């Protein structure tokens, strides 16, 4: 619209009708109050969930979900760090199994802008990878009954072994993550992410150090690195909600899982637990002692990852996607590795190795989709061993399918992630703030709390007080749906 107005203004200054010009530019400007008119356009066509659903097909051993083999199946994928090839491969299998069915597959980065109007009209696709920056709010979707319960999929026989149910082939915690309250499973997380402290084995070796297990050791390693002109830590300063990837499991390790659960449940004074204070103090010390890469609070995730890959800092809190995302800046001999977070000392409630791992890449089947069985069948195919292996070897990430790494060459980061999971055993924690309360986690705790503390503008005590205030406000806010650990 800039150019349109420019023409108008130039005409105006030639002498005629300046008043009109002003009026016109005001009108033009008002259109630029941008989202309003767009928003309204979405809502106006109120949908009715009329009965044009695909008829159920015949239930057979090969088709346990009774997919209608002539019905169209539509699949919309988030085209992000994992690309779209893995999904296209799975779609091909669907097409082979149901040759008469038409599959409409598309990949986009704009999940919400593409799909929000379709939800509003009651004509959503049959399977969605609801991920990325434009992820639709799951809490709202569940609260407004927009999602189909995936229990039939989980109780169906698995793709590889008819004697096993799909749910028995999944990694621990995956099914629970897809629940909100009660039994229905709304979301199928397909990827499996290991969060923790990422580092270069080569850099650690050059300092003659092992990954530190207690905070005193951590400070010693950082001091040593500093002498060599290397910062200890960096993080995505503009998105400080990456800090929790190592901070939350540390809190769990120090104080026990109950502390994290209380935080997720928005219980009063949950953040005032001494374990939280101890961990905040520990991180703040990194800042105080100058172990955080200079300028970090002004870096975004890519910039901080790049600085880290260039060896300017030893450690970075991140998730296992970092290997794929930073593939072109990580040197070949980097020795990419991940570790469970360092604890305080031997009095911690959980052993070293306690790690945060959980599902990523959430897939949903809309309740109002025409071919819900088809959407679920597509997921069942993706959860087979072959498809899972295909995903892992293509995008360097684990899937929800338990196993599926035998016989494929694992990249260094992935290998170290698998090892970390093995070491953790049952000590896997899964804080839910980031999928239950997006704004609280990212903007309030992350940016306004942790980010400010790590930039040295809040003390740990002030940060805790501020964050507790945000959590209390979220607990009271009736416009947010609240969840509890079962």
């Amino acid at each position, binding site marked *: 619209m*800039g150019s349109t107005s420019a023409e108008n203004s130039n005409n105006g200054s030639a002498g005629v009708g300046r008043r009109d010009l002003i009026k016109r530019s005001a009108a033009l400007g008002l259109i630029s109050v941008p989202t309003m008119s767009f928003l309204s356009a979405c809502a106006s066509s109120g949908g009715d969930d009329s009965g044009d659903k695909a008829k159920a097909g015949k239930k057979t051993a090969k088709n346990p979900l009774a997919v209608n083999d002539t019905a169209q199946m539509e699949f919309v994928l988030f085209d992000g760090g994992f690309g779209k090839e893995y999904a296209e491969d799975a779609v091909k299998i669907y097409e082979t199994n149901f040759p008469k069915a038409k599959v409409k597959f598309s990949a986009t980065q704009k999940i919400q802008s593409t799909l929000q109007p379709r939800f509003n009209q009651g004509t959503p696709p049959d399977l969605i990878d609801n991920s990325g920056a434009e992820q639709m*709010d799951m809490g709202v979707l569940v609260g407004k009954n927009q999602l189909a319960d995936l229990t039939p999929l989980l109780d169906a026989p698995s793709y590889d072994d008819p004697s096993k149910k799909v749910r028995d082939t999944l990694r621990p915690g995956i099914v629970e993550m897809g629940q909100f309250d009660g039994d229905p499973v709304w979301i199928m997380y397909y990827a499996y992410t290991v969060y923790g402290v990422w580092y270069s084995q080569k850099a650690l070796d050059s300092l003659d150090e092992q990954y530190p297990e207690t905070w005193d050791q951590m400070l010693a390693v950082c001091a040593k690195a500093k002498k060599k002109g290397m910062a200890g830590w960096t993080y995505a300063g503009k998105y400080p909600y990456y800090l929790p990837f190592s901070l939350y499991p540390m809190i769990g390790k120090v104080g026990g899982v109950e502390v994290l659960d209380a935080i997720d449940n928005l219980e009063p004074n949950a953040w005032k637990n001494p374990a939280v204070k101890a961990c905040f103090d520990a991180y703040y010390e990194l800042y105080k002692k100058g172990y955080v890469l200079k300028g970090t609070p002004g870096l975004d995730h890519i910039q901080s990852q790049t600085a880290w890959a260039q060896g300017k800092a030893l450690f970075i809190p991140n998730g296992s996607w970092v290997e794929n995302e930073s593939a072109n800046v990580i040197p070949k001999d980097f020795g990419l590795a991940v570790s469970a977070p360092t604890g305080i000392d031997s009095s911690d409630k959980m052993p070293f190795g306690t790690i945060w791992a959980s599902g990523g890449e959430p897939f949903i089947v809309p309740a109002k989709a025409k071919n819900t069985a088809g959407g679920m069948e597509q997921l069942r195919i993706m959860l087979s061993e072959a498809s899972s292996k295909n995903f892992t070897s293509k995008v360097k990430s684990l899937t929800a399918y338990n196993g599926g790494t035998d016989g494929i060459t694992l990249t260094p980061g992935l290998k170290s992630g698998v090892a970390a999971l093995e070491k953790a055993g049952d000590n896997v924690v899964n804080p839910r703030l980031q999928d239950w309360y997006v704004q609280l986690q990212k903007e309030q705790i992350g940016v306004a709390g942790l980010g400010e503390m790590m930039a040295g503008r809040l003390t740990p005590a002030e940060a805790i007080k501020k964050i507790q205030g945000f959590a209390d406000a979220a607990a009271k806010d009736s*416009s947010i749906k609240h969840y509890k650990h079962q």
Partner: protein
Amino acid sequence: MQHGKYRFIVGFLALPLGLYALFVVWPFIQSIYYSFTDWTGLSPEFKMVGLDNYRRMLDDEIFWKSLQHSLIFALVLPLVTISLALFFSFMINVGGRKRRGGPVVTGVRGSSFYKIVYFFPQVLSIAIVALLFAFAYNPDSGAINSILRGIGLGSVQPLWLGDPSLALWAVMAVLVWSTVGFFVVLFSAGMASIPADLYEAALLDGAGRASTFFRITLPLLWDTVQSGWVYMGILALGAESFAVVQIMTTGPGGPDYSTTVMVLYVYQKAFRDGQAAYATTIGVALLVVTLAFAALVMRLGRRERLEY
């Protein structure tokens, strides 16, 4: 005769007015309607909740912050941009001194080159400009801090976008950089239509640059300045501020909400938090602010029209 005349006018206006009503007025009415509901934006179901959204907005600390930032944008940006643009275009078109054999009224030496330099940012999309500056502001390896280091100011290494007290100004500086060229061209065109003999007379009377500018150029350019002011203010409240804030300080809205502006807040509420109804409520507030801004500028800027 009168009757026929109106039918003639109506005949011409019906179609554009109809389109305007359908695509501009109607969405506005709809948004105002949705601000009284609890619509999420993710499902077609909603119910009326009366003034709840407005009550919530008045208690919403972030809303007030975003309003404050938007107002700073709307007041400071036009002031800085337009003053700079006026100065530049005056120097380019009028500020020069007579050279032998040249026209009486002329710009400073090399003015056609400056014109291109100023206008250059206009050919870049605002998204590119924002990304470019996001890199330049990188405190670790960005251009600005590197320059500071290069000239021996290694101890001054601001965090720019990472510092709540600087972020808003850093973002505004980018908008000034990218929009000033447009107004230079706009004002140059306006100055071109001012008769040269006025300037000649002033020069003969011995007027300097400053008095030529304040006595002749500015008064004769007033209408253009005023409409430029409204236009810039609306840009600052709307599209442009959204783009730079969203792209540069994706934190989101800068450290500790230091750059959250109203349009960004509307976007976040509608497309991140699934609270479309509340978003329209803030949208309505933005509409009121924009209208008030335009009305205020027109009111304060009213003065006798000069004919020449």
